[in-house]
């Protein structure tokens, strides 16, 4: 679509060009995490891979939940023991040990094998596990990716806690470096796979639930104020798709002060004289509708105007 390598266009200040380049680089970085899945119907779905940070966050949440479960049951058990007078404490403890093992190893499996294919931690961050080939996530895969966790997290932890004399410490350090390869595996591959993911043929994608909001242009058409805000083609051509999307965000979620500032800037840029009784919100919505109409028309003709500096396709 837009190539970042092209030289600065005439009429762009140094600062603006720098900002634009940074924006493009960020877009490319995000683009690198997007994988295209072609459904059997032949349609494309874009899957966004979860970043390492998101996965680490999900893991921390899950570990906190696991510890909460383990400690809560231990406390509950000892309370019950105390209430019943220390009878058969060993048997109770035996059951708790087995329970601990299953929480430690099967917590992830239990949740990922279900319909949502995500642990509570993953769900909180909008992540889910999916098969890399786009097929169904089998139980075997879920088992494989989670049994590997022992090596990825358990092993470095063990080496970390291992100490002792000089030789022991060196061995521990060596082991730590070696097992660190497993721990930091996701950082070093394109698909952000853990060793478990690699072995199970899975990856973790970000699939948050989005809500459908009302179309901003609906307000404009409903109010039938089109005559009030009649923008010339030049005015509607002042911006590109990037600015349209920023404007959409501004309209959907920002405060009145920001809306006012944005409205002032747009008015200044397109040379619009505010009429009496014109609100900032009304102006922005009307301009949004005009800009989107214009850009969508051009898009139908195969011209994507990426941003306001994009002058390759003259109107």
């Amino acid at each position, binding site marked *: 679509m837009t190539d970042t390598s092209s030289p600065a266009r005439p009429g762009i200040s140094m600062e603006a060009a720098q900002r634009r380049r940074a924006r493009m680089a960020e877009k490319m970085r995000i683009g690198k995490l997007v994988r295209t899945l072609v459904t059997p119907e032949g349609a494309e779905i874009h899957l966004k891979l979860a970043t390492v940070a998101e996965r680490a966050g999900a893991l921390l949440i899950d570990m906190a939940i696991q510890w909460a479960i383990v400690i809560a049951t231990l406390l509950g058990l000892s309370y019950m023991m105390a209430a019943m007078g220390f009878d058969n404490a060993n048997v109770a403890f035996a059951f708790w*040990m087995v329970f601990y093992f299953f929480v430690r190893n099967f917590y992830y499996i239990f949740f990922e094998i279900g319909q949502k294919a995500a642990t509570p931690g993953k769900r909180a961050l909008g992540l889910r596990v999916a098969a*890399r080939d786009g097929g169904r996530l089998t139980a075997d895969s879920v088992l494989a990716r989670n049994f590997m966790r022992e090596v990825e997290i358990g092993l470095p932890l063990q080496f970390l806690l291992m100490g002792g004399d000089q030789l022991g410490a060196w061995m521990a350090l060596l082991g730590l470096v070696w097992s660190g390869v497993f721990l930091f595996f996701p950082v070093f591959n394109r698909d952000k796979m853990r060793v478990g993911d*690699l*072995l*199970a043929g899975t990856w973790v994608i970000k699939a948050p639930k989005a809500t459908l909001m009302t179309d901003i242009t609906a307000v404009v*058409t409903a109010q039938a104020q089109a005559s009030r805000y009649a923008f010339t083609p030049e005015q509607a051509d002042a911006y590109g798709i990037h600015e349209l999307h920023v404007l*959409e965000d501004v309209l959907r979620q920002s405060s009145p002060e920001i809306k006012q500032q944005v409205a002032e800037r747009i008015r200044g840029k397109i040379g619009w004289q505010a009429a009496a009784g014109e609100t900032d919100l009304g102006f922005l919505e009307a301009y949004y509708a005009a800009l989107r109409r214009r850009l969508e028309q051009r898009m139908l003709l195969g011209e994507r105007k990426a941003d306001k500096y994009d002058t390759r396709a003259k109107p």
Partner: protein
Amino acid sequence: MLKSYRFREEREADWRKLDLILTRAENSGVKALSDAEMTALPQLYRQAVSSLSVARSISLDQNVVTYLESLCTRAYFFVYGARTSIGERIMDFLRRGWPEAVRGAVWPTLLSFLCLAAGIGLAFILCLQDMEWFWTFNGENFFDGRNPDATVEYLRSTIYTNEGENGQSELAAFSSFLFNHNAQISLFAFALGFAFGIPTAWLLVYNGVSLGSMYAVFWQKGLGYEFTGWLLIHGVTELFAIILAGAAGFVIGGAVAFPGQKTRIASARASGQKAATMAMGCVVMLVIAALLEGFGRQMINSDVLRYAIALTSLVLWCAYFYLPRTERQV
């Protein structure tokens, strides 16, 4: 009026209907859906997917495209996802997946068996020649006093449970501790296979060594026959499980080290799932072993009966894993 707005207005109701069905299915399972919803689902899904590709090319409404993207992803995973219940999955694992995975890994199983046997044999022979080896292998405090310095009477008392002895609850705790230990070791043996199977082999030999050296202690005191019974009543299941866990590790290690025609990643993936099934099976076996240990061993004090149970369990496991069975047509 904008084209993209009209486009959205015409289809929005269907999108929302699909959204509702998916939310219900995600929250309360497939069973919560009515027949009408089930029939409507594929149709709505296809519509949403085609809406998405149209929206990408005609609409610049970010929210609509993001929403459709998320809706289609959810719908895709639901429509093409696994629809089997957890019960069906477990039955499939027991009936087909597990024995098939074990049957498919005969050579790794033999290799794993050899590693463990080598560890046992080595430690046993070395310890019989010179008991100092026991301390080398096991350190000072090991198996609560079951070491070369113990008397024959003490060792014998650890093998049998006396009448009226109130150690039942302690033993239960001990066997659950052992289960934890063994199961964790098994999962480790599986997972470490990824490093070309070398740590797995070491783990197997090491476990063999500690078993072999203990065996030597009892053997030297003339308790070999009794100890074997004590060990094997659950040990057949337990050792078999550890051998299979090692085999699972070797399956992965072999696939990573020698991918053959496939790429390394594809090869690891193909074998990883089978190996994971085996590892899961090991946990099941270890649960059974722990039950045999915690209850069977404490209640049965006859050597003959212990041997009989050991032999029966061996025959049953072998039959379950290796007996050829007719594939049922699906």
